[in-house]
């Protein structure tokens, strides 16, 4: 079977499996409520919850963007393992407190927590909408990155039989179809399939890379001969940038709206902590492999440009496929695994966008089926805009990720600080968010991404937090009854807030 035919066959089998899972998920649907559509009826067990968390966290950025970044940065990119590990570390500050509240009060969207915490204060509704707006912008950026990665992989897996634009448009429609028809249940089940494919694909890729390069030592020697800086000890400036990146991604990804939805969707608190314990070790099995893939490409293709480097993983797999039938079959399996990883993130982002827009931005009732329909339409509309932007990619996948994180971290005080500090008030949180977003937006407007090695978004978060804390401390300390929204009990009135 020829390369394109094999790729098309692999793609067809994978899409057929997705269709079957979507049909099964649709049959299991209990009703049209937002809780059933967006959270799978709050009934995800450990295996599916773990795999959906895994497939959602490790995305097109991980499998396509990170090898490209490793190609550009050399072995220093191994530190990406550190920032992916940081996500479940920072989640310790979120899930143990948020989950019991979500279960007690029936949260559906990320903004339900913000509404619960600040909703009775005069500035509360504005905080809910501001947080939702920032999350929507960040998620739209994330969706764009997935669509770009989808286009690259689809073109490569079919050896150009499906062009880049065809991959972007066609696969976006597939994701939209199963997200709309099956909701979170279809997303989680397809994520489970996609997570398994990703793990199998990465194991095969690692074996091929090690064999091809004559072992890790041979690969390192070849990289050092072509580009010594890719192997040398990084300088202090690079270390500072990495410390900044670990903090940025740890905080930003811990409050991903799609991750928060999975905290709500777990069958129980015990289920959630077991799934997170499994997820905690997965960066070792994933990021190390994709980093080595990117580094291994340096001596093979020494002259790729920054944007071209995002295509380095497909390039390597194309070479593997050309070695013979076994290589072609395995490379196709890895391609499909990569595509699965990208689609699983895109579907989760799309589902989260629907909930954030319908419930938090538009104020829909979280028990009303009309809210579900509104969420589906909103997600579809945003997908159309993102597809249009993906047809002409202008930034690297990694830069898209950084921009998303720099916006998203500005929401951290409304979650991480608000869960732990009862004195935090809505108006200072809103002011802090405005200051943080203004600072984070500066790099886009002025072409600056870091100051003294630190991401501008993190500087924005520092200013954001300072404003929120100082503003809250300047207000009278709350009475005993005013901190009730951090408890699991029935919701109380907060007439004295603000």
């Amino acid at each position, binding site marked *: 079977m020829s390369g394109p035919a094999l790729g098309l066959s692999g793609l067809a089998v994978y899409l057929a499996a997705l269709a079957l899972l979507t049909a099964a998920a649709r049959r299991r649907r209990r009703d049209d409520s937002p809780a059933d559509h967006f959270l799978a009826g709050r009934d995800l067990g450990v295996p599916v919850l773990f795999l959906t968390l895994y497939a959602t966290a490790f995305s097109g950025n991980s499998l396509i963007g990170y090898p490209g970044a490793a190609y550009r940065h050399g072995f220093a990119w191994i*530190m990406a393992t550190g920032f992916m590990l940081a996500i479940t*570390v920072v989640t310790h500050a979120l899930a143990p407190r948020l989950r019991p509240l979500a279960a007690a009060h029936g949260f559906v969207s990320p903004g339900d927590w913000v509404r619960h915490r600040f909703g009775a204060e005069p500035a509360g509704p504005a905080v809910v909408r501001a947080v939702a707006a920032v999350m929507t912008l960040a998620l739209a950026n994330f969706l764009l990155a997935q669509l770009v990665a989808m286009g690259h992989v689809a073109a490569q897996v079919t050896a150009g039989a499906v062009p880049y634009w065809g991959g972007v448009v066609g696969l976006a429609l597939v994701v939209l179809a199963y997200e709309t028809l099956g909701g979170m249940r279809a997303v989680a089940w397809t994520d489970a399939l996609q997570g398994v494919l990703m793990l199998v694909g990465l194991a095969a890729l690692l074996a091929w890379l090690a064999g091809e390069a004559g072992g890790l030592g041979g690969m390192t020697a070849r990289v050092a001969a072509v580009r010594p800086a890719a192997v040398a000890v990084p300088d202090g400036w690079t270390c500072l940038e990495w410390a900044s990146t*670990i903090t940025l991604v740890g905080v930003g990804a811990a409050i991903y709206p799609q991750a928060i939805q999975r905290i709500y969707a777990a069958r*129980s*608190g*015990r289920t959630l902590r077991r799934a997170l314990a499994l997820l*905690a070790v997965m960066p*070792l099995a994933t990021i190390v492999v994709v980093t080595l893939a990117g580094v291994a490409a340096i001596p093979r293709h020494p002259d790729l440009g920054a944007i071209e480097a995002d295509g380095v993983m497909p390039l390597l797999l194309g070479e593997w496929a050309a070695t013979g039938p076994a290589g072609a079959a395995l490379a196709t399996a890895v391609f499909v695994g990569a595509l699965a990883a990208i689609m699983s993130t895109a579907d989760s982002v799309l589902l989260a966008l629907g909930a954030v827009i319908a419930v938090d931005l538009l104020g829909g009732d979280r028990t009303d089926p009309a809210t579900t329909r509104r969420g589906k339409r909103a997600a579809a509309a945003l997908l159309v805009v993102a597809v249009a932007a993906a047809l002409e990619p202008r930034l690297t996948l990694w830069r898209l990720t950084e921009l998303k994180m720099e916006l998203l971290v500005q929401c951290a005080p409304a979650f991480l600080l608000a869960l732990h500090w009862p004195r935090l008030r809505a108006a200072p949180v809103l002011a802090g968010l405005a200051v943080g977003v203004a600072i984070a937006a500066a790099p886009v407007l002025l072409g600056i991404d870091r100051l003294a090695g630190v991401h501008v978004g993190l500087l924005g978060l520092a200013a954001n937090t300072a404003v929120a804390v100082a503003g809250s401390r300047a207000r009278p300390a709350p009475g005993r009854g005013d901190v009730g929204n951090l408890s699991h009990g029935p919701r109380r009135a907060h007439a004295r807030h603000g």
Partner: protein
Amino acid sequence: MTLRGWALAAIPLLYVVSLPWYRAAGAAPAVLFGLPDWVVVALACYAGIAVLNAAAWLATEVRDPGEDP
């Protein structure tokens, strides 16, 4: 301090060691297990972080209202 507390306290220290700020910048590194030695140190730290974090999660109480301990 609890097991969870010790594990979470050790993680930042491992992050500090994982970044090679204490090494001479630009130096050609020794190769260990086929990789530059500073990469091996970073990977060892990440393995420690992963194990400690997983242990911390297993020791974390996340209990829904009405859920048995």
